[in-house]
């Protein structure tokens, strides 16, 4: 038995012994910190780690590249001996080094205009060769960032290229020179293969089981962030790169004219000046990206949509947990960083009818700056490279390197969610309490999608409540089948388990699953006879639930946080706001201090005025999809946080 297998066997035996949750007996609310702890690496005063790349060296040292062009190698990053990490400047002077990878005794880094190989030939710990592997054109626009590389199974490198923006049409992503808005595959000998286009701001790259994935950032033509499986010749939505589709080596055969014949780019002038396209409220028959697959087979929709404002606002690195359990119970699963919300999400994908799809959960918030890059240390901890310069983030530091460490405790979580012909199967980390899990009132689910249009971002549209016909809890309580009769392909299906508890009485730590259902698997459906269709609300005396009713009277007693929380979660307020702590947006208690009327707060939910909060760098998106009754209740609750006048 090798060491790895031994370790897994040890873990399994450990799990079978402690099948109950060790923290459950403690009378306290358990949080992310009880399971995963963020530790900060100290840096010498004056050292600025605006991290653009994190690589793990074969000897366990951690290398980081920075936006200021340095590559630092960190010795004893895990501080095992209780001693300080030591930093050595390996290379410097690079142009916005937004990625770093180790291969064959060298480090590879994408600069704005080239892929560079850094070699320490004389072994003094500093690169003495800065070799250009391949240089691509660039126009010199600020937004032309280049990300990567990631190493393909054949040893070549994937690099992704941001679009520029227009001069007059500053809102419109454009590809001014060849291959902006593209993913490139570059071999060691310097030959380049244009791989795919449709990229807008492809900050996150990931190699998962030999397949290349990337995530894009919400903006024009990208209604929300999402992870795409990028096979050669894929088109993921942003039209700018199609400008070069006619070139001999382009694997894409969609022209911009063909696309614009189907989707109006809304590029028009009034009085000689271009007018910025905005979201059309109550738009009849808006374009949906997946429908273009009929006309253009190369259209590639997201494998996993990451709803904007909920699972990030600027998605970044994609890494697979390759720690064989050292990082906890999610071995083999995928983690995705987010810059703006300074957090990490968890993703599990499956292939259905030849296409990847899957589920995303919230995982860990609270990093000190934007999470741009992650990689694994030999100790099984995750190294998160941070920066927020120019964009701001929930974590208010501008930079840093932090470690995320598993405390050894397993949280009560949905381990994964998989699609079924008639709904979803949810697998848990602990057995569920059947009473709560068989109660349909423990569940709330809905589905929605995003527009495909040239305006910046998209509200969620076509929202539909999912009809949960029944649930079936497995014998061992580890799985629940949720049967739904109105699934929609390509829609994001959101399943909230507000009421489900473990047998130890623990709620699900992150109780919402976001499943992108590109395809509904074929197969048998569960017979209704096997399902529980119980509703505690139908059996018990009707419990007064003020949260879900419209309140107009101001004399009513203020809601508690527990009462308002479902509304805050459902409407994604908590993605950016907390009760008493500044996050991406101001704390609710700080909003209360502004003494707005409830009606004014509702107005600001629908049409925010970010100028009111100049110290917050990320402006709030308009939230026209929040129902007015919800908005009024939220507003009343916010105002209830204001200390009464003495």
């Amino acid at each position, binding site marked *: 038995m090798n060491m790895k297998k031994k370790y897994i066997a040890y873990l399994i035996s450990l799990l079978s012994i402690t099948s109950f949750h060790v923290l459950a007996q403690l009378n306290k609310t358990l949080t992310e910190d009880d399971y995963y702890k963020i530790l900060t690496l100290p840096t010498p005063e004056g050292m600025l780690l605006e991290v653009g790349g994190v690589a793990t060296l074969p000897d366990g040292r951690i290398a980081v590249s920075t*936006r*200021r*062009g340095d590559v630092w190698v960190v010795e004893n990053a895990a501080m095992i001996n209780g001693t300080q990490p030591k930093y050595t400047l390996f290379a*410097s*002077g*690079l*142009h*916005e080094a937004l990625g770093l990878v180790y291969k064959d005794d060298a480090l590879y880094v994408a*600069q*704005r*205009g*080239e892929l*560079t*190989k850094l070699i320490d030939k*004389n072994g003094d710990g*500093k*690169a*003495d*060769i*800065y*070799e*250009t592997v*391949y*240089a*691509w*054109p*660039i*126009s*010199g*626009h*600020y937004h*032309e960032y280049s990300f990567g590389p990631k190493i393909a199974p054949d040893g070549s490198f994937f690099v992704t290229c941001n679009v520029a923006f227009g001069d007059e049409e500053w809102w419109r992503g454009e590809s*001014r*020179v*060849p*291959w902006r808005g593209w993913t490139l595959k570059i071999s060691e000998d*310097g*030959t380049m293969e244009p791989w795919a286009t449709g990229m807008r701001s492809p900050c996150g790259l990931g190699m998962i089981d030999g397949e290349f994935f990337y995530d894009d950032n919400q903006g024009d033509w990208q209604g929300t962030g999402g992870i795409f499986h990028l096979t050669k010749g894929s088109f993921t939505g942003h039209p700018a790169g199609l400008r070069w589709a006619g070139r001999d080596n382009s694997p894409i055969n969609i022209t911009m004219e063909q696309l614009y014949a189907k989707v109006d780019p809304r590029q028009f002038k*009034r*009085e000689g*000046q271009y*007018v*910025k396209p905005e979201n059309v409220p109550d738009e009849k028959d808006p374009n949906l990206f997946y429908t273009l697959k009929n006309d253009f087979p190369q259209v590639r929709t997201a494998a996993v949509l990451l709803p904007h404002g909920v699972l990030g606002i600027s998605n970044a690195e994609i890494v697979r947990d390759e720690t064989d359990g050292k990082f906890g119970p999610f071995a083999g699963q995928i983690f995705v960083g987010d810059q703006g919300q300074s957090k990490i999400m968890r993703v599990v994908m499956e292939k259905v009818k030849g296409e990847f799809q899957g589920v995303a959960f919230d995982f860990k918030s609270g990093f000190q700056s934007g999470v741009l890059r992650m990689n694994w240390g030999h100790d099984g901890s995750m190294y998160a490279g941070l920066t927020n*310069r*120019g*964009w701001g983030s929930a974590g208010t530091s501008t930079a840093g390197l932090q470690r995320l460490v598993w405390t050894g405790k397993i949280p009560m979580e949905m381990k994964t969610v998989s699609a079924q012909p008639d709904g979803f199967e949810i697998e848990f980390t602990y057995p569920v309490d059947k009473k709560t899990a068989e109660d349909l009132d423990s569940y709330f689910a809905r589905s929605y999608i995003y527009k495909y249009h040239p305006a910046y971002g998209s509200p969620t549209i076509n929202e539909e409540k999912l009809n949960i016909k029944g649930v079936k809890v497995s014998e061992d309580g580890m799985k629940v089948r949720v049967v739904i009769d109105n699934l929609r392909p390509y829609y994001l299906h959101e399943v909230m388990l507000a009421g489900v508890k473990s047998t130890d009485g623990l709620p699900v730590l992150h109780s919402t699953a976001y499943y992108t259902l590109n395809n509904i698997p074929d197969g048998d459906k569960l017979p209704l006879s096997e399902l529980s269709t119980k509703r505690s609300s139908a059996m018990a005396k009707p419990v007064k639930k003020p949260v879900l009713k419209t309140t107009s009277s101001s004399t009513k007693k203020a809601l508690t946080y527990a009462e308002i929380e479902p509304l805050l979660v459902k409407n994604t307020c908590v993605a950016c706001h907390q009760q008493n702590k500044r996050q991406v947006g101001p704390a609710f208690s700080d909003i209360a201090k502004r003494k707005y009327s409830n009606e004014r707060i509702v107005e600001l939910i629908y049409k*925010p*005025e*970010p*100028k*009111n909060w100049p110290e917050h760098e990320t*402006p709030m998106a308009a939230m026209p999809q929040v129902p007015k009754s919800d908005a009024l209740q939220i507003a009343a609750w916010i105002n209830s946080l204001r200390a009464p006048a003495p």
Partner: protein
Amino acid sequence: MGKAPLSNPAKAPGLWQKLKISFRAPRFNEKGQKVENARFNYVDLNGIRIHDNVEVPLPTGGPVENNEKPYGPLMIQGDHGPVALRNIKYTRLKEAGVALSDLTYQTWYGNFKLISDYTGLKPDAWGTLTELTCEVLENEDAYGSSYRGTITVSDDGNYKLILAYTGGGRLVVNNQQLINYQSGDGFRRDEATILLKAGSYPFEIYNFKNASWLPPRLGLFVQTGASPKALHAFNSFPPDDQPVSPILINPGSEPKMIRAFLDFKGQYKQRLTHTIGVGDPAGTHYVYDLKSGNLACVWHGDFVDATPMWHDRGDGSFRPMGAAQYLFNNQPLSFLASESTPFPVITREDEINPDDYRGKGYVIEANTGRPIFNYLYQGIVVEDKIYPDQQGRMIHEVNIKNRGAKPGLFYKLAEGKSIEQNPNGAYAIDDKSYYIRITKGATPKIREVNGIQELYIPVDDSFAYSIVW
């Protein structure tokens, strides 16, 4: 006590230099008593500011006379040998009297994309003003406004008007539209010059904004003297209360290399995208273009200002901090079909053609810490070595590893509107902007291509030259 210049951007002897001085004479009251010292508003040498808003409390050494007066002759004092002067130009700056009166305003509230979206509507508010100010706005965003009044000028002459504002704006003076920018999310400082005779004229300003992240701002400045004068209320366009701390980079004890975009000759249109700045501890620096294997500019003094690249999102560029001597752009090494064939031009759109020019990056030289650049040109291996000598000259060694037998290989050394050879053998480039001297290799030739003179050298082997400026 004299005041030393901020830096020394002076060029080598024999080269033309550019000096720009803005001087304000001392001011006296009716009794003839001095009320304000003389001052240099600024002094720029070769484009670098060496004095910035410096008062001159007493006559300088060796003056024409010792009594300060509001008017007097200009005197240029020489020192240390012969000095040649040419192209002396002057402008007498006079602070003209400019005043606004009869001010009225109208405001509208709504999301306007163009001025015509609101001017036809009934305004939400209107009234008269004693000074021009956007403080009349009741909302911080989603507004339209117009301001009208009379502008009175004291003298005949050119008036530079500057409209600074957030959102969109239009300035009309005496029924002439001088500024018109219609986008609700601008943060602009537009200027226009109008010739006016002494007298009064109607003016109109329109300003609208549809950008919640920008505060309301509206400023109107007039400039006839050395610096603009505000015609608006202070709080209508207050000074920036969060000025940027500059990020200035200098080499320490070892050479410093930084990749960045370079705006060639300071022009965004000529932005070079694959460039590296190399700062030497000796204080002589250069920028090399890795996309064409070309030395793009050289300078003395401080190294680079990286603020444009590293502040906030940044635009990816840095600026040389000394008086940069820009050389020329594009690939200097090429096979030419004939000696009248131009050297190749590489645009930003061009991809590399690996069979033609291909940059290979650089190697750090162990004993000096300086980079040595490598590239391939049609199979020829080239090593580019650039370093300053003790006298502040830049030495450029071009080492050809495998020349081969194909004839017609040339290297461009310099270009300019004129190139002449000095008796000492050096070539004075571009109307005596800098010198090139071959230290190893064949004798260069001068030719004219498309109206530009070029200094070039046939390449049969490695060669070297120095640049003096």
